[in-house]
């Protein structure tokens, strides 16, 4: 009895999320028919001419496709790795701090950029790294040639990853910190009595204690392997870095929304979704195997 009324609350809380999911993620999915059509917005989904796989043929003939898939995977994989390691190291270091007040301060401060949108951050970053910005001012003062970081196709992907990590690592740090508080202090005391050094305690108590969290975060992020971050790159890139910075999402945006090539853009987006779907299945299998993470 008690149990059932409890679960009703849960369903109620689920409702807004489900409505959002259906409206935003499931209903638009019918739009993928555009990939097989010569889509005409006036005629709509039902009366546009059906052209089968023509859009896909053209897509694979384009020289751009290989480079945008490569860029996407390259940037996304680097981001996944960095988002795993940086917050972990940071959380471990923060955890060693004795003063709770400072700890909380730092935690809040590194978390702050997470709340700013890329539109704003990109403007700030481009200014900081511009020719007249402080970074190049420093380089010049040290006698180096100034570098346009966001206009250099070699540096661009790394700048993207670094700025994204800077913006987001506070978020994962909090998850790790939460996991760390779950480790029983008794274990540390026991280890200390056994004469384990700080590093030993870290290795034998802390890390095993949060392994599940690490594996879980790692495995779940696999689903993002084709999400290199549209809003970030869109706000930072320019034609000079198309060769290394143009990703699937930005390409689809330009092709579909700026050039009105609906069919082609949808075909590329669909391909991306299919690959992502497979990766999510794999990551779910891995998650249930290594971290006991189950939905069904």
């Amino acid at each position, binding site marked *: 009895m008690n149990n059932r009324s409890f679960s009703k609350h849960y369903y109620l809380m689920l409702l807004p999320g489900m409505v*959002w999911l259906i*409206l*935003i*993620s499931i209903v*638009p999915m019918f739009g993928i028919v555009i990939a097989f059509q010569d889509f*005409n*917005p*006036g*005629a*709509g989904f039902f009366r546009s001419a059906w052209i089968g796989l023509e859009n896909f043929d*053209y897509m694979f003939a*384009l*020289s*751009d496709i290989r480079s945008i898939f490569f860029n996407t995977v390259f940037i996304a994989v680097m981001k996944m790795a960095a988002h795993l390691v940086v917050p972990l190291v940071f959380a471990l270091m923060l955890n060693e701090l004795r003063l709770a007040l400072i700890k909380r301060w730092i935690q809040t401060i590194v978390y702050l950029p997470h709340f700013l949108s*890329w539109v704003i951050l990109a*403007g700030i970053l*481009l200014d900081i790294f*511009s*020719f*007249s910005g402080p970074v190049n001012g420093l380089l010049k003062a040290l006698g180096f040639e100034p570098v*346009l970081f*966001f*206009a*250099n*196709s070699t540096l661009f992907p790394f700048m993207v990853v670094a700025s994204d990590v800077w913006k987001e690592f506070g978020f994962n740090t909090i998850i790790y910190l939460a996991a760390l508080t779950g480790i029983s202090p008794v274990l540390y005391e026991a280890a200390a009595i056994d004469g384990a050094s700080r590093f030993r305690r870290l290795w034998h108590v802390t890390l095993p204690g949060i392994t599940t969290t690490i594996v879980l975060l790692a495995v779940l992020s696999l689903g*993002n392997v084709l*999400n290199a*971050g*549209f*809003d*970030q790159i869109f706000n930072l890139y*320019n*034609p*000079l870095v*198309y*060769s290394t910075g143009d990703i699937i*999402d930005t390409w689809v945006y*330009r*092709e*579909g*929304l*700026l*050039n*009105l*090539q*609906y069919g*082609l853009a949808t075909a590329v987006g669909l391909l991306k979704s299919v690959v992502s779907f497979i990766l999510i299945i794999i990551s779910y299998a891995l998650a249930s195997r290594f971290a006991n993470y189950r939905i069904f």
Partner: protein
Amino acid sequence: MKKVGLLGLTLLLVFLTACSGGGSSTGPASAGADGGGAVKEETPDPFGKYEETITLTYGKSVDATDKSLPVGDTPETNQYSRYVKDMLNIDTKVSWQAASGPNYDQKVNLSISSNDLPDALVVNDMQLRQMVKAGQLADLTDIYDRYASPSMKSFIEKTGGIAAQSVTFDGKMYAIPSVQVHADGVHQLWIRKDWLDKLGLEPPRTIDDLEKVAEAFVTQDPDGNGKDDTIGISGPESGGLLYAHFLASTNNLYGLDPVFGAFRAYPGFWIEGEDGDPVYGSILPETKEALGKLRDWYAKGLIDREIGVRKDAHEPVKSGQSGIFFAPWWMGYGPLPDAIKNDPDANWQAYLLPLDSEGQFNARMGTSSTQFVVVRKDYEHPEAVVKMLNLLIRDEAKFDISVGIGYYPLRVPQSAPDESEYSAKALQEVLAGTKTPEDFNDPGYKLLAADLQNVKKVKKEPYDNMDIQYWDPQADLGVWSRQYSLLVGASTLLEDYNKVYSLLYSQTKTMESRWTNLKKLEDETFLKIIVGAAPLEEFDTFVDNWKKQGGDKITEEVKEYIQQ
């Protein structure tokens, strides 16, 4: 996750606009009766006022940096929309607004692809074609015949059929085209004459002169602030164009068109090749030569080092950092008002320079119509749009343009193609005293009477010296904007110069799917060559790829088009 968020936001916007679109479309439907009343009139009156207020919704492009609106006014409600309401009883409502340029285009594209259109819009050539193809537009053939004022008709006819052709599909007219002045397509050299004077230099006549002047501007601290912070030649901002091209042939601010012109290179234009067949200017050796020179200049620091990356190319001109830029005649409207606000001595003068090796200025010319006013199919009062444009043509001279004329609802420029040069000449003659304002009474030049009346408000003696110290912008900045643009910017066009037209100003069939990629290839390669991120030899690879990836096929199509 972020991607999903953005997608969600986009969709949410679509839903929201869908809702508001639905709401407003019921408005005019219920007011349909008075629309019938307007049609019932025996002779259609181009300026006829509706008996009952009708509503017209439209998408608005707004210049985000413009600060000319008085407090309390908005892009939706301002002196122009009130004027339209008073004179025609049309209540104009903004369905959505977006910053002019790429943002506005994107918003229009979103409207087209979701088939959720306001009653009327200003669109570009590509969008017009897409909308015609999608069957989203009202046929304006009859309405134009019946309601267009004689002035509008004469402007459109003066283009020799080009303007009408650009909006006619299968014999039906689907939009009201802009009729822009020739001058909008001629990009000339704007230079800080006060800097030249200070350094004892002359306006650069050749490419070599230009190099020397730019070098002096960069190295000799022309602004005298003791800092190494000046830019020789401004370049386009991120997303801007290195040169105007056949699909966007006018008003390319901060491009490098005249530099290409001095090499007789016309990248982005379809021109006649040596064998008489059409050829794309970007793949010719002259373009390579010009790129080589620009690359050289960039390496020497003469061109804005943030070319193609800068977020706002206006900024260095307004703040007094830049010494040279290339742009059309109307710079007095912007960015120069801000430039002289920051530095009243900034003496920007315009010249048809640099010249090619034979001493000739080569200007690529734009097409007359690059913007189009379209009306949604099923809108009850399509003639309202024509009436509003009639009114703009008739009464533009009366407006106080210190509030940007861009706030006029659905404004596209329409005027006699040679209005700028003609007005400049008239002003010169009146200032010189050889003629009087009464000598000019051709009604085809809608602003001239007011121009001639106002000129002495802002122009100080001597009347033949155009340096900034002989102007009084404070007296009336709106008047100054126009007079300075005409007398400094447009008067240069009275000289002889070589006019180069593109053979084609619209897309062919294959371009619809292939052009984006070819253009991306071009933009990326050229910008990389200029900033030194790729060797000059990359140009040859580009030419090969361009031909292979559809360029050859498109060239054939252009040839067919020309032969028709």
